[in-house]
């Protein structure tokens, strides 16, 4: 299995991102295609470990060494089957998963890890491209009915599995479109929404019913569901944002990410929005509070709306460029990450705690006051800094 010496012969290579100047002008995904030949070479780097740490690093227990090997041998169809055996939607995870598998990759101990995420995405995209992913309606029906509340990735995965097991499944979504965070959380440049749509098409063809604008417990009484279904699965998301309770928080111009990002996605889908409710960075100076993934999503979205300037503040100190010693392999490493959005511009500041906001007379936010702080858990103010 695999190519024993592959990792010694080939170095890590991943798909390149499109040039910044090009991509900030559109909303398409930022990664370029990766040639098959190279991909197989990358598959050959997998060492087929006796104890594949990647495989437990992966929250869905993807059989990573197995499909790496299949890709190396050009057996795409089998790779696709194996990939789907643990993961309903590799095209989502292959784009937006932070890839803890790669952080746990054994090769990563002393060499760049295997490009697992790239391979995952490529397997599934090839599957779509070649028409291998087709509706798989169940061979028989159990006659049981299941309601699933929430159409995010969890709800969708459950829906597909339960349907294929022969139950009649209906998915309820309070928003106007199916997909939850996939639809309205992930920016288009990370995952184009057609990716979600084609999967939904497959599911519909398999027999899953989707109901949108259906807020269970509000627009639809729970009792109705209880009457109609044999089982109800709650797959609602965690939508409560983390607020920042500092003076000035009430000023205009301060927004939660999950108010901002969905708008951008809706626009990309061609929705006409109520312009009075627009949250747009165009022509503004923007500060993003929070240096994590959501911050990065906002950052990329802001870039595409042509702001005057962007700053991103993170309360944690700047992580080391390499894996921090307190998170040794195979743990998820604390280390500096440079996402696509960071490449595109903006200034990242570390160890900044926001103390208050001040605004103009009209109640529009004008200033952010912060201090430099030390490391967690105390975040003690550093001397010499003040708001």
């Amino acid at each position: 299995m695999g190519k024993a010496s592959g990792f010694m012969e080939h170095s890590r290579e991943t798909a390149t991102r499109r040039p910044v100047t090009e991509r900030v002008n559109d909303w398409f995904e930022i990664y370029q295609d990766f040639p098959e030949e190279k991909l197989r070479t990358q598959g050959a780097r997998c060492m087929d470990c006796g104890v594949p740490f990647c495989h437990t690093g992966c929250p869905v227990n993807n059989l990573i060494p197995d499909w790496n090997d299949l890709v190396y041998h050009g057996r795409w169809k089998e790779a696709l089957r194996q990939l789907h055996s643990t993961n309903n939607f590799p095209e989502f995870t292959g784009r937006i998963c932070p890839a803890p598998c790669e952080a746990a990759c054994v090769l990563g101990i002393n060499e760049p890890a295997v490009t697992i995420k790239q391979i995952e995405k490529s397997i599934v995209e090839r599957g779509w491209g070649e028409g291998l992913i087709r509706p798989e309606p169940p061979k028989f029906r159990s006659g049981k009915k299941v309601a699933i509340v929430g159409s995010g990735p969890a709800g969708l995965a459950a829906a597909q599995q339960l349907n294929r097991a022969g139950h009649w499944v209906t998915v309820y979504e309070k928003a106007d479109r199916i997909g939850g965070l996939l639809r309205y959380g992930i920016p288009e440049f990370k995952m184009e929404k057609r990716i979600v749509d084609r999967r939904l098409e497959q599911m519909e063809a398999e027999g899953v019913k989707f109901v949108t604008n259906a807020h269970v417990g509000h627009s639809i009484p729970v009792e109705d569901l209880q009457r109609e279904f044999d089982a109800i699965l709650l797959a609602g998301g965690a939508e409560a944002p983390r607020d920042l309770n500092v003076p000035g928080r009430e000023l205009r111009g301060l927004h939660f990410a999950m108010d901002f990002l969905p708008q951008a996605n809706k626009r990309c889908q061609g929705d006409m929005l109520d312009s009075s409710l627009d949250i747009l960075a165009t022509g503004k100076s923007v500060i993003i509070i929070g240096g994590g993934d959501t911050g990065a999503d906002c950052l990329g979205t802001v870039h595409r709306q042509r702001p005057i300037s962007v700053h991103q503040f993170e309360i944690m100190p700047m992580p080391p460029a390499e894996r921090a010693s307190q998170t040794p392999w195979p743990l998820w490493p604390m280390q500096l990450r440079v996402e696509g959005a960071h490449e595109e511009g903006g200034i990242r500041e570390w160890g900044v705690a926001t103390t208050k906001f001040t605004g103009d007379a009209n109640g529009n936010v004008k200033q952010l006051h912060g201090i430099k702080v030390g490391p967690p858990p105390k975040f003690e103010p550093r001397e010499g800094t003040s708001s």
Partner: protein
Amino acid sequence: MQHWKTSNGLPPPQGLYDPTHEHDACGIGFVASIRGEKSHKIIEQGIQVLINLTHRGACGCDPETGDGAGVLIQIPHKFFARECEALGFSLPQPGEYAVGMTFLPVEKHPRLNCEGVLERIVREEGLSVLGWRDTPVNGDAIGRVGRASQPYIQQIFLGRPAEMDEDAFERKLYIVRKRAEKEVAESEIEDKEFFYVPSLSARTIVYKGLLLAPQIANFYGELSDPDAESALCLVHQRFSTNTFPSWKLAHPYRYVAHNGEINTLKGNVAWMHARQSILASPLFGDDIKNLFPIVEPAGSDSASFDNAVELLFQSGRSLPHVMSMLIPEAWAGNPHMKPEKRAFYEYHCSLMEPWDGPAAITFTDGRVIGATLDRNGLRPGRYVVTDDDLVVMASEAGVLSVPPEKIKSKGRLQPGKMFLVDTVEGRIIADKEIKKRLSSRQPYAEWLKENQITLDQLPEPTRMHAADHATILSRQRAFGYTDEDLKMIIEPMATKGEEPVGSMGTDTPLACLSDKPQPLFNYFKQLFAQVTNPPIDPIREEMVMSLISYIGTERNILDETPENCHTLKLPHPILTNRDLEKLRRVSRGDLLAITLPALFRAADGEAGLRSALDELSKRASLAVKSGYTLLILSDRGVDKDYAPIPSLLALAAVHNLLVREETRTLVALIIESGEPREVMHFALLIGYGASAINPYLAIETLEDLAARSYLPGQMTPDVAIKHFIKAVNKGLLKTFSKMGISTLQSYRGAQVFEAIGLNKDLVNTYFSGTTSRIGGVGLNVLAREAQLKHEFAFRAVTDADTELAVGGSYHFRVNGEYHLLNPLTISKLQHSVREQNFKTFQEYTELIDSQSQNLATLRSLIKIKKARKPVAIEQVEPAKEIVKRFTTGAMSFGSISKEAHETLAIAMNRIGGKSNTGEGGEDEERYQKDANGDWRRSAIKQVASARFGVTTNYLVNADELQIKMAQGAKPGEGGQLPGHKVDEIIARLRHSIPGVGLISPPPHHDIYSIEDLAQLIYDLKNTNPQARISVKLVSEIGVGTVAAGVAKAHADVVLISGDSGGTGASPLSSIKHAGIPWELGLAETQQVLLMNDLRSRIRVQTDGKLQTGRDVVIAALLGAEEFGFATTPLVAMGCIMLRKCHLNTCSVGIATQDPELRKKFAGKPEHVINYFFFIAEQVRQYMADLGFRRFDEMVGRVDMLDVQPAIDHWKARGVDLSAILYNPPLPGRVARHCVQAQDHGLANALDHQLIARATAALENREPVEMNFPIRNVHRTVGAMLSGEIARRYGSDGLPDDTIRINFEGSAGQSFGAFLAKGVTLTLEGDANDYAGKGLSGGKIVVYPPKQSHFAAEENILIGNVSLYGATSGEAFFNGMAGERFAVRNSGATAVVEGVGDHGCEYMTNGLVVVLGACGRNFAAGMSGGIAYVFDERGDFTEERCNLASVDLEPVIEPRDVELVHGLVSRHFELTGSKRAKCILDTWADILPRFIKIFPHEFKRVLGVSRTRQPYVPGQPLPVPELVEALHG
């Protein structure tokens, strides 16, 4: 110990001890007058031979009691006539009466009962009792233990009726004895177990007992009576692994004495038993029933063999005929054998299976006396014939001093050959003549031609099963195929034609603890040979191996008719679908097949399975009665209702019923099953009696893989299937050879397996005779497992499943089998030792120890009790003392990188533990400490079968010398380091050549039995008296008994390795299926050592995936005082269980030699040290809780262990650990740990005198010369002296010839072993086995006595296995050597005038010149060095040489010519060889008949190595230099 006694004098089974695993091996010999002249002198000489073989025997706890000795002589008529006269009855003429030697109860009443029974039977059989004679014995002459169990010894004299001829009389006596044995055994007579008849014959009488050789003449006073006369005297000295008193198990038996072991005994005995129903002989008529059971129950292998010999002999075959039948030569693989002789053997093989195993057998019927060797020739036998027609044959030369001028010839027993003296004809009959006579008895060849059938002769089937791609997946699932089975087993076998290899041992649960449904096969473990008999190399010694089998109805073996060979001959046991269809439709002669379904209704579970088994057995029984001769048990037809019966279970059920109905031998059982897919499966089916197997689903899987183009290079299904079958067959040979078994026929039904985790009911019902010591699952679980697979198979397939279950038993998978070493445990362990964080370490051990969720090991079912009075932890022995008990495993530099190897050594030296070199030698620069005080020297130096780098200097730089008998990952196997891995450093350390592949033979060629091990221990102890000697064994049933033998062989330490350990590369089937957990092996060892009171004189160590403090404490409580670790220290240093050690691609620089990868090694000694201290701290905590202050108090306190309560696992609940936790009832004075040192018997070594006389040389390098007489009891001469030299001067030694020692006489074993540079031994006389073993620069010259008359080059001069593992030095032998001359030579130069079989085997370097005849298989596995052979007979190329790895070339290059001429000249100068003189005198004529044997690999690298400097200065290797010079 009286209460322990059973019928054979051994204790009954208890705990893990089972008397059936006792072994013995020994010294044998005989003295005979060729002309049959009776004299008292012959007896005297026989006893003298026995005395001189004393060192081949052993004593147990009582030094005065040996393991047994005895003599067999002709009836001393003159003596008995005189004695009986005095007793008031007179004897008729010799031949007209018989003498029965009888052992009787000591108490009068039961004794009279026994005598009464015997007398009555005698009369009933129409014979008369002439009288009894109370045999005078001297009880004071023997040891305490011997005396305690001594029987009352009487002789009974029986008269021959006038009308009865002598042969009929002997037959009658046979019946009398068998009847009496049976009747007494079945009687209520008290002490009946004493009753035993050593001999009852009109021709011979046996004197034997539980005594030491020198005691026999004093005990049996009459042996010294001048009137006691015999023309022959056959003697035996026993070395047994046990020390339990047994008078009966002493040899000789009635016809034979045996040195060796019958490995296939279980099968042989079972088949003999099964045959009883069809035995018939006109000579016996109805009386034949009185002979049953033919094989006495509870006999040893030798006793059983003697029983078989007796039957065949008494029913009319001559003794030589019987011997050739039971222990045939290797005929199948010998194309040069005469056709008539082949036919003779083939005919007899189709009658019955060989009794296989290492055996030197001496035999006599009172008229002929002889000896024979098994096909492998693994036991020594030497003889001399004198000019007054006396023959002396014994395990060693020089056992009887014969003036040289009287010697007519000297010889040795040869593999498969017979040495026979006919005292009636008055001559020695050569093997050729014997075999010719036997072959021409009947037209065997014609009989075979007319009656034997082959598959080719059968008509092509009209229809065959085709692959069904549509349903294959569900069927694969139903049979439990996993993804891994396809990827890691079946596909590689089809691709490469061999078994796949893996590394890093196994850490998955035992089958009986696993949550996953297992194949029934996984509940069995292969047995393997260690110490008491050697495994075989099935590749290099292929000529002795055979997969041929004969199927059909067995006939009466006492008959000799053409019909007896009416069988179907199969070249191997794996049938393709086409083969099977041919068989299914066969209609030739008696052959008629029927197919019986082996399926059950899955829904019915256990009840369904049980009734299906009953139904199947019934059908089989009916089929036999209806005349079918081939029963095909088939599980074709699995569907959504029907699941397959596990194929092994179906087979066993049918086999058992037919055995009970006594019809088993009428039919052959053929398995048509989807289940078998790996070697172990096939081995098990054959081992439990299958004649052939059609693995149809494995075949279909290959067809399917090919159709989906999963096989490389567009391989066609036909090729893939061919490869697969080839791989299975190779694997089978390997499996047989692990157990020392050569032929499939002998393996079939031999049941050389142990069951782990099957309950008693199941085993007794279906696998009777198989050991299963911890209980386990029953039919209900087997049914459930079949159901689970079946449910998975016929459940709707969704994407949530992979096509097949992932498996995960070789590689970790989240949804697969549980692994102790998984991502979490590995990372926790690594984090803890790197950060020196005990808390993290405890998290790690918590994961391993609390296996309540994931039972994996036997110890997970064990609980450690709490003491009533714990002690404060401060009072417990400090951790720094405890870590001294820790060792790291034997991993060679070669298997792991220099960096990893040295890191381990530094760590262990810092904490006072011990690291182990492994088998690859050690760089001498590591012997000196580094500037920072670190020491990279490994305290333990391993001595393994290849003896790589084992020089005298290596041996003296050790604290412990470890003899590796087996390794956990692949017990019973050798190894191979491919040439590309042999870089310059590895080559230098192993004394070989860069780029040339290195082979480790499966056995140590100087250890074929327990007394050989004693000899090697003695050799090593001589070389380095300060080092302790350790013997590494692997757990299997009977390991405790072997360990007792090891203790008696004077080892200081015995290491019991578990099956799961192992870091090196091994075939996957060995990793998974050979050996058993250390818990069982260790507990058995402790119990057996205690029962023998041997525990006090040996330390016990254990290893095998020890991971936590709890593991150590459990091992200690079970009896270990030291502990080995290999996997976990590697993990501590960074190993992440890539399991790619065999591929050289270890990504963390541990198990690799790749310079780039080695740079990635990040391990530090501190990591290893932290690990061991963490373990020790945990141990201390347990000790405190247990109330032990000192570690020694804890050792063997098995009473502090209990079974883990509340385990309610669907499989584990049947497991019963009481045998492991058994505590033999012994008084407190019997020590539970080692309290005394072994007496190695070095005090009497001749070397003390040599050293004393060599002071000037040792101290001042001044030349010295000395003369000594020498005898065979002087063993290992020169080794201690050499150790002294190495200690002072390292590997440089002294200048050549500084110490010259001249000997006269017969040297004992290991003459000149490990002889260091600067010493020259010259011997006028002869030498025994292992001359020049491990030669390290010294020089040995041996020539026959000047006054002898025989032709030196035609007579045997030195024994077997000379120059084994020699690394440098020279040897000149003016005469012939035995088998395996210069085996594993890696540097010595030798000239010899003839060699036996397997000359220069596995040679990797050095130079050998043979000036005469060679045996077969010369140069097998030879990869380096050069040999030159004078091919006098012109048959070398065709018949003598194994051409697999060498080229043969003429000697024409001037440098070759010069070299050979020079060496022959030196040989002449040093030995005065007449042959050398003759060759030199006619040089030009003779030169064209010299052949140069040039290994391919050596040739290849020579082309390369001329352009570079392969050798480091200061490490001269003589031969490459010579060769370099040669090719300039």
